[in-house]
């Protein structure tokens, strides 16, 4: 199971007197049916730390849920009997839609296991779909809220080339030196291209991301793209940017979502810093584990703040400046990619966010570029 908790190390947490109640035993779940319903259930349940998915089964060996199960290391069963005999099973979820399946399961189930099937399973599936629509909606809402803060940067970057274009064109109305006319016409063309690039960057960033459109993403390229976008939201020109990229680092995921994650992490980092601080972007792929680190030398966070940063609507920014959705969405995106996110932070010294993807999850062995 992927660790998605905001990782304060144990020694830190104990030092701060944070209580650790004994964790209740996980609920052990079996999923019957690996069609759309089973796949959606897998996606939601595997994000929940208190649920352990014992396995999934379907009579169709090419059911889409099987591939998803393998991606997230859930055992795939050919036969229902084998799965429901697993010791410690607490709950069986029948999402086959087959009216005969419920009664058949009821007869075979061990005495202490519960069954969800029929209309109850349909309701569950509806709720799961609703949850996933909400998550996508929140991601988009937060992205649009963020784009509001780009206004100053966009205006700056649009109006400067426009001033150049206007100034040169005015000059051309009475310029007699033909060499100057040619040179200035070329300057105008370049300025128009720069302006167009701004619109292109932002329109591609603001479009709604498709929910599942995974491919191999070139991480270093995405980080560079994110720097270009983040520039509109925060004053990157005042800080030093260090890139420690290992060549050809790739992960499996949705490129738009990953871009959004990087823009968010970079924006947060820059907002935590003063002039002449350092932003470090680091990528590495060693022995089947890929890591992306975004570090700043800014104000850092207290352990109390660290323990809450991934909560929905939690923000330390002033009203109107932060939605409290940024890190919550990042955690969801990374979890969907079967990766994990951790933070290390010290007040006055800065913060480091680390994204980790293990082989077989978001990591791809092949070398490619998106």
């Amino acid at each position, binding site marked *: 199971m992927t660790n998605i908790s905001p990782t304060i190390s144990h020694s830190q947490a104990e030092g701060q007197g944070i209580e650790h109640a004994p964790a209740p035993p996980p609920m052990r779940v079996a999923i019957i049916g690996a069609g759309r319903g089973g796949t959606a259930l897998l996606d939601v349940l595997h994000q929940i730390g208190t649920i352990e998915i014992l396995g999934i089964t379907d009579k169709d060996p090419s059911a889409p849920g099987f591939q998803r199960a393998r991606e997230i290391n859930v055992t795939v069963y050919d036969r229902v009997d084998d799965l429901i005999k697993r010791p410690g099973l607490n709950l069986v979820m029948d999402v086959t839609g087959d009216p005969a399946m419920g009664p058949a399961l009821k007869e075979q189930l061990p005495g202490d296991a519960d069954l969800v099937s029929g209309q109850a399973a349909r309701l569950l599936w509806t709720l799961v779909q609703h949850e996933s629509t909400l998550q996508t909606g929140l991601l988009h809402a937060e992205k649009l809220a963020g784009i509001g803060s780009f206004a100053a940067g966009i205006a700056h970057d649009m109006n400067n080339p426009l001033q150049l274009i206007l*100034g040169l064109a*005015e000059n051309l109305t009475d310029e007699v030196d033909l060499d100057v006319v040619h040179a200035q016409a070329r300057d105008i063309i370049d300025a128009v291209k720069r302006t167009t690039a701004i619109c292109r960057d932002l329109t591609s960033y603001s479009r709604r991301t498709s929910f599942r459109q995974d491919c191999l993403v070139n991480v270093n390229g995405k980080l560079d793209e994110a720097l270009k976008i983040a520039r509109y939201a925060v004053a990157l020109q005042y800080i030093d940017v260090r890139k420690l990229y290992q060549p050809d680092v790739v992960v499996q995921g949705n490129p738009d979502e990953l871009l959004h994650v990087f823009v968010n992490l970079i924006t947060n980092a820059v907002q935590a810093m003063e002039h002449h601080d350092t932003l470090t972007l680091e990528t590495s792929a060693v022995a089947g584990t890929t890591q992306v680190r975004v570090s700043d030398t800014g104000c850092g966070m207290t352990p109390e703040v660290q323990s809450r940063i991934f909560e929905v609507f939690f923000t330390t920014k002033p009203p109107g400046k932060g939605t409290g959705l940024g890190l919550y969405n990042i955690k969801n995106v990374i979890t969907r990619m079967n990766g994990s996110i951790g933070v290390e932070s010290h007040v006055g010294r800065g913060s480091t966010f680390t994204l980790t993807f293990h082989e077989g999850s978001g990591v791809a062995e092949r070398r490619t570029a998106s």
Partner: protein
Amino acid sequence: MSEFKSGFFVGGESCNGRVLVVDDEPDIRKVVRMALQKAGYDVLEAENGEKAIETINTGENRLLLDVMICDIRMPKVNGIEAIAYFRQNYPRVPLIVLTGFPDTEMATSLLRQGVVDYLVKPVEREKLEASVARAMEQRELAHL
């Protein structure tokens, strides 16, 4: 009315006055210079507030600088900080703001601080010249 013309003789040639353009974009400094030189002004450039302060404190600029045109969003010392410095140390040098990001609140606050004009990019040559001419009048009045 006084006959005084500040910066009237610069580099041995007659000119309408000396203007310092502060903007981090070389392209902007270039087009503003082009426009103002055509209108007969001597133009100095600085890429940020820090350089602008250095420039005004250098040699004859302390006395001969007539008008400053200043961007707001710049690295190092930004426009707001530079304008505060200039208003305090060189209150007789009229200031024009030329910004890419119109902000009503900021405009009001700057105009209250005595900024002559708040221009939003892209600004036409005619408007820029008129604004500088108006600022130049203020500069001359300050010498009366």
